[in-house]
């Protein structure tokens, strides 16, 4: 399956808190680490609730922001890579796997 078709989603153990006055937090009880999310990060995280490809996440974030910067796509891709590196999201196996 090509990279673009891979679907990703939030890992179930990751705790998401969005009740602060500024940014939101993700907490991984496995590694005992907390990560801050800005508003774009929150949109990305929420877009991954049901599973999505990177392209779908970019489209969902674009649809929810009226004044998005030119770097939006690269910002989302970079954040996506970070979520993968920190093992905060996982592959949805077997979905749309058409090779």
């Amino acid at each position: 399956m090509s990279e673009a078709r891979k679907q990703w989603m939030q890992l179930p153990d990751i705790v998401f808190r969005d009740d602060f006055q500024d940014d939101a937090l993700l907490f991984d009880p496995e590694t005992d680490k907390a990560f801050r999310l800005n508003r774009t990060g929150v949109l990305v995280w929420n877009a991954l609730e049901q599973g999505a490809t990177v392209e779908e996440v970019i489209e969902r974030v674009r649809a929810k922001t009226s004044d998005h910067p030119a770097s939006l796509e690269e910002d989302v891709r970079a954040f996506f890579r970070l979520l993968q590196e920190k093992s905060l999201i996982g592959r949805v196996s077997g979905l749309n796997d058409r090779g």
Partner: protein
Amino acid sequence: MSIAYHLQLADGTCWQFEADTALTPWLADFASILSLPAAADPPDSSSWTFSVHSTAPSTLSIDSLQWSMYGVNFQLSESEKKVSAVVPASLEGERRIYSMWSMVQPLYRRATLRGGGPLHAALLARHGVGVLIAAPGGTGKTTTFHRFSEPWKKVTDDELLAVNTDSGYVIHPFPTWSRFLLDPGNHRWNVNQMLPLGACFFMQQGEDVQIDRLGQSEAAVLIHQSMRQILRRGWQAAGTAQEKRLKLAAFDSSSELAKQVPCWRLTLPLEGTFSDQIEEVLRREGVWDE
């Protein structure tokens, strides 16, 4: 069991410590370090009992949570209101200090599950309000603590317990155990002392004094780091489910603390004065009334 000692936390938790005959001197020394008074009454149904044994008592259940730390074997009853610790009576010197150090972990665990938790920070007091200076070990926290002068009160320089109460977070000072390793003298801390928590400062070194207000989420991450620096000492031997429960509780406590207590990043040079700037910030933010 011999004489019992009493610790009253601001969240209503009342701990009663007792030991068997062989560990009576050990418990007396532990109580002396923490300035624990002798318990006036036997523990009642609302008390949390902490029994220290020289040999494993036969009443311990195999189903309860068990872990080891610094040569001490702990067991927590299912209701978690009874802690048993088996301490070798022959311990001396540093190993004896470490065994006492391990005793505070069940207290920290209980406070964390109730919305508070331990913090790796120095505690100062002014106008009856507690002010924390937090920083990782080796970054100058203790040096900074000693740079404060009267009328600031220097309470403790390394470890403390925040407890969650109906009227906000309250701090209890806890011992700097490592001090005994450097200087085996008669050091004392009044752990029953309570101070309302007014502010937290997260220290870093820099060329000029700078005090920047932190957003709640950034403060939560820093408070969480401070809390896990203390809690992780007792986690490794705990059961996986219990460990996860405690980690989630510590994250929740850190988040709530960050929402309730104003926090700043404090950048300090190695020399010079800075307490005037801190006082100005705290006065302006209404942390204390003068």
